[in-house]
């Protein structure tokens, strides 16, 4: 299992981009931390999440 925002999820072997999209989120509007390190947007398609990884997805909304 992978932990996404503290919740267990079946997401191993998927890319960060796939996971973000499957959550219904826009890759341009999120910040992602994987095992304590920020994943750059340019790497979302390359980084593959593994079993027991811990991922935080911050989804931003507009207004300020």
């Amino acid at each position, binding site marked *: 299992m992978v932990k996404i925002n503290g919740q267990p999820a079946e997401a191993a072997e998927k890319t960060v981009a796939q996971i973000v999209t499957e959550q219904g989120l*826009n890759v*341009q*509007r*999120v*910040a992602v*931390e994987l095992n*304590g*390190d*920020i994943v*750059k*947007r340019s790497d979302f398609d390359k980084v593959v999440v593994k079993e027991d990884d811990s991922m*935080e997805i*911050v*989804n*931003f*909304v*507009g*207004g*300020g």
Partner: protein
Amino acid sequence: MTREEYFNALIERHGKEAQEKFINATVGIAGLGGLGSNIAFFLARLGIGKLVLADFDRVDVTNLNRQQYRVADLGRYKAEALKEQLLGVNPYCEYETHSIKLTEKNIPEIFSECGIICEAFDKADQKAMITETVLSDMKNVILVSGSGMAGTDSANKITTRKVISRFYLCGDEKSDIADGCGLMAPRVAVCAAHQATAVMKLILGQSPV
């Protein structure tokens, strides 16, 4: 009013120990709209030693419903118009202005002196951009971001949360300007006050949450 008289008055309200920490701090504000202009006023009133203020935009009439500008400021760069007002509130702190668009390339340089940066953009993709930049390229800097303050929902829904290391998020994280719910001065100011409070506590060595 001398500098000494001014700071003695701040010390009377804030205490000597806190005021010394405030005076020695440098804080960046990225975006000077509804969040950033309010945050800047709060931090100037605390007596933060130096504020780095950045926004490429000029004051528009549609800003006046929630941003700290005046009719007389229309058409001026926000950074310049804001600096003028901040000098009127606290003439003894330093205000460095940058009227250029912030990018992943220039953010580390513009805010290089800042231990804390407030993200105060209005577009979600720009909020994501600065978060990625600060957390990956500015290793010792703390980011305090605002997301979710649109609409007319309760002010009590706006909170401060530590999301990941060196990153605090203020807002309800849901109310999106894209949903057409508008941006109202009091609710935007509540979020700005959350961000300014988080900055204050970080400078004092306290946890913001």
